[in-house]
């Protein structure tokens, strides 16, 4: 296990060191101490390493992550795991706006609540939130899965494409073109796997599924705006 003191050694040195780890690195475990809400911690990683951030982070922690597991032992600021490609990001606390924005792959697990725009424009990432999510979540979400064990805020899934949304609690309001959909056996099976991956103590049967009504897919007089 390597320990890296961010306050002492600086962000550039941290990211350069972590980005330099190759696929076959022996230094697979990293503890980052003194994150102090800093931005862009552990971004652009591309190796099967496990990074523990020992505290809360600022914007864009684990941005564009590939392969790595980044574990935030605190809360994450805006845009955690934005545009993630693969790997796993776990946030022990809450996540701010734009969690998992535009993510292409991998798994983002948020053990607390996520704020607004969780999963905005997601493109294949799986996001599993133990708590609630804020307004405008999954806006223009293209693909991937968003699982919410708590409640969802206003305008869930506005202008949604093909992402699947599973919510256990209440939904304050659905966004344009987002509708509740039938939970079929294949969805229950998928959800069971996602809940297990996310370490959630919840049953698939307790969730409702939401998806696109696909009424905004083509320009028509009634939906032009």
């Amino acid at each position, binding site marked *: 296990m390597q320990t890296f003191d961010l306050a002492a050694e600086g962000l550039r040195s941290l990211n350069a060191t972590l980005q330099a780890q190759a696929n076959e690195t022996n230094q697979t475990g990293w503890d980052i101490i003194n994150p*102090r*809400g800093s931005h862009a911690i552990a971004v652009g990683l591309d190796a099967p390493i496990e990074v523990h951030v020992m505290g*809360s982070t*600022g*914007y864009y922690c684990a941005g564009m992550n590939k392969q790595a597991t980044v574990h935030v032992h605190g809360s994450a*600021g805006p845009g955690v795991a934005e545009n993630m490609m693969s790997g796993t990001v776990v946030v022990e606390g*809450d996540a*701010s*706006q734009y969690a998992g924005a535009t993510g292409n792959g991998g798994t983002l697990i948020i053990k607390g609540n996520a*704020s607004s725009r969780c999963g905005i424009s997601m493109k294949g990432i799986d996001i599993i939130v133990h708590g609630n999510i804020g307004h405008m979540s999954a806006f223009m979400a293209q693909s991937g899965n968003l699982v919410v064990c708590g409640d969802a805020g206003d305008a869930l899934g506005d202008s949604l494409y093909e992402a699947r949304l599973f919510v256990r609690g209440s939904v304050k309001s659905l966004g344009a073109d987002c509708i509740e959909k039938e939970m079929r056996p294949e969805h229950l099976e998928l959800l069971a796997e996602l809940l297990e991956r996310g370490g959630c103590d919840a049953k698939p049967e307790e969730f409702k599924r939401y998806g696109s009504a696909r009424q905004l897919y083509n320009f028509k007089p009634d939906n032009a705006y």
Partner: protein
Amino acid sequence: MCGIVGLFLKDKALEPQLGSLLTDMLITMTDRGPDSAGIAIYGAPQAGHAKLTIQSDNAAQDFDGLAERLSSELGAPVTLTRKDTHAVLDFPADKATETRAALESIAPGVRVMSAGESLEIYKEVGLPKDVAARFDISAMHGTHGIGHTRMATESAVTTMGAHPFNTGADQCLVHNGSLSNHNSLRRKLLREGVRIETQNDTEVAAAYLTWKMREGATLGEALESSLVDLDGFFTFVVGTEDGFGVVRDPIACKPAVMAETDQYVAFGSEYRALVNLPGIEQARVWEPEPATVYFWKH
């Protein structure tokens, strides 16, 4: 476009540290606003006293003998405590209107930063650390305070364009975001006789609240109606004599983090601003909801 910090103390033992805690928070937000900085500090009011924080670009000349002249004009005791380009005038609370009128006629070049019984506002152009040092903010005691670092969007980088803006007695406002209907609103408010001195969008928001309250609204009601009447993007933090409030526009793009412990409620545009607060690791940290007015009061 800016950084905002705010600190509301529940624990009286922290009051001597208010200035130093806020200064540290303010400096952390330098990247978000390197153009100018300002801070509003609420101290314990002295019974029967009121104060004005004033500013002049020719402080030495304008402040020299000002207290004596005001005192003789009003027939009441007036003291002046100078801090760099600013000064605090202390006078009997029942002479508030007369003092302001007398100041305007005696020293027309002097600008009023704040008026009230507990509020003092200090703001200048420059980096937050330099502004805070000029006014020795870190030595100040108080019950609560708000700080702001500004990255100017469209209006000029000047002292008067810096935040916080004084809205009414012991009330102030800071803003992060960009309004989109402030020019029309400025014209309307000017027709209503509200004083607006700059092209700054936030000053219009402050003037709007002043006007609403003049028309009989409470601050809470004025903030509620701001959600309808102000267009654009904003996170506002307002200070009052006994607390502070937070409101974000319905889209709520501009960041806001709150932290609460038994000792305080804190606001930061970013979590970074809060990391040196005592016991932050144990604090409840959350984000205010859009289009919702929050208040904390003593």
